């Protein structure tokens, strides 16, 4: 089955459909929100890098769910961190505490844990910080995190990383937080001093341009890297082939695999960018 190409490990996803109560909604900035759900069966299974597929109840004329990374798990509850970008996320932002929402999950394969001697290096762009913050929490040991965005408003979850004693590097395009520039710029500067060292394992989630750049760095320096891709999705479970990505297979062939089921996390070296 296509599922065999998922990468280092292959979890057989145990997914659920759950009708969850909204416990809390929070406005982080004008564009970013969190939503906390009472969602025991999905929370119990969730791993960093996996996602849920949300049916937005007040979205008119909709046929498709929306995918969101799992941001936090606390016992029975599940949090998502999202950015308002279109009509679905806008409708989501109008949901109120106490309402119900239907979600499927956990979906896809999460991030493999790093080798026990390796330093985890996370690179996040915008809402890509959501699964990486969850990963940091589950890792149990600190590492280095790079976070980028257009302005300081796009730099999220820094409190979480601080609490866990991570080394934090920030870049914003307008310089309103951290260095002025792209996250890849500060990553490159940092990398320059370490490129011949091993012992690092990269995890990245964010916009395609950033992911592609990180992939190139990882491959070039022979570092192991895990990339979480963001593709428009239909079914979310591997049935519709809306979300495919070209991947190098073990036998050298190239195949279009499903980001929702075979990913969303792939080994950096396998991804073929257009």
């Amino acid at each position, binding site marked *: 089955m296509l599922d065999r190409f998922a990468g280092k490990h292959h979890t057989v996803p145990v997914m*659920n459909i759950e009708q969850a109560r909204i416990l809390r909604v929070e406005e982080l900035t004008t564009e970013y929100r969190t939503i906390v759900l009472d969602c025991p069966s999905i929370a119990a299974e969730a791993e960093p890098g996996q996602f849920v597929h949300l049916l937005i109840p007040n979205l008119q004329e909709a046929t498709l769910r929306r995918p969101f990374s799992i941001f936090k798990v606390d016992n029975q509850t599940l949090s998502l961190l999202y950015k308002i970008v279109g009509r679905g996320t806008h409708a989501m932002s109008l949901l109120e505490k106490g309402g119900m929402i239907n979600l499927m999950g956990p979906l896809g394969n999460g991030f493999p844990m790093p080798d026990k001697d390796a330093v985890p290096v996370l690179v996040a762009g915008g809402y890509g910080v959501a699964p990486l913050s969850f990963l940091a929490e589950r890792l149990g040991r600190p590492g280095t995190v790079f976070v980028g965005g257009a302005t300081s408003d796009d730099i999220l979850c820094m409190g979480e990383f601080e609490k866990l004693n991570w080394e934090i590097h920030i870049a914003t395009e307008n310089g309103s937080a951290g260095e002025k520039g792209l996250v890849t710029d500060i990553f490159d500067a940092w990398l320059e001093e370490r490129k011949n060292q091993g012992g690092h394992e990269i995890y990245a989630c964010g916009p395609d341009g950033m992911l592609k750049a990180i992939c190139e760095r990882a491959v070039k320096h022979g570092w192991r890297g895990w990339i979480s891709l963001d593709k428009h999705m239909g079914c979310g479970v591997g*049935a519709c082939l*809306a979300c*495919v990505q070209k991947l190098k297979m073990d036998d050298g062939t190239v195949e*279009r695999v499903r980001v929702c089921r075979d990913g969303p996390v792939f080994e950096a070296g396998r991804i073929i960018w257009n």
Partner: protein
Amino acid sequence: MNKIPDMSVDLCGIHMKNPVMVASGTFGYGPEYADLIDLNILGAIVVKGISAEPWAGNELPRMVEVRSGLVNAIGLQNPGVRRFALEYMPFLRRYDTPVIVNAWGRSVQEYEEVVARLNDVEGIAGIELNISCPNIKEGGISFGANPESAAKVISAARKRTSLPLIPKLPPSVSDIGALAKVVEESGADAISLINTIPAMVIDVATRRPVLANIVGGLSGPAIHPVAVKLVWETWKAVKIPVIGMGGITVALDAIELMIAGALAVAVGTANFTDPSVSVKIIKGIEEYLKQQNMRCVRDLTGSLKN
């Protein structure tokens, strides 16, 4: 009087527990939804379209949501008959649910080839022949677009298999009844319809088509009233059974198609919205039959009163 109604249907030799199948391309090859619903509950599974050889499909984006529907241009990506048989059939054979394989080609020869190969695979209950694909030999217009090319493909495929052969008709034809008649005469055992309606979405910000393939097919609730009409016209034109699909989202949508003439129905896009929708629809049809004091689901087929 509230006895459990008889939900079974015999679809040109395919015995189904109930008339509700899942539509090709919306349910993968079976395993994808197996965690979420019990595949044994389904009337039949129609798998994603298969060609004789593997096919890579279109570039992304392949799907876009529109009002009460979606437009897709997956481009029929599939691993070909050989890998399908190897990788998915062992899984599917474990279930007590008929497997109908959707098959396609770009020339008469390719259709013959895929049908011949599928005929040799164990555990297939029937072949749904997707004739909405562009005929690459004759200018790219779909085989189903006119009765002549449809007849050619079906007659050729007929010779290569003794399995039930179920051509799937495109919706954008001016006389579906005439097409259906020719399809019946060419040796089809049943007819399924409707496939998606050709459609297109443009991103006005960039003035580019949203789909990499430029055009795609519209599915979902938006097309349901069109499906009801075409199923009714087809049912009037032929004697072979009709499988109705297009926008089924709740049980009433399925019942409407059956009243219009469908012996069985297939649920497509709605699986994306709610993976358990087909199970709900099966229950909903049962409820309806009880309320209406009907003993047998087959009595619904073509029961439209004028």
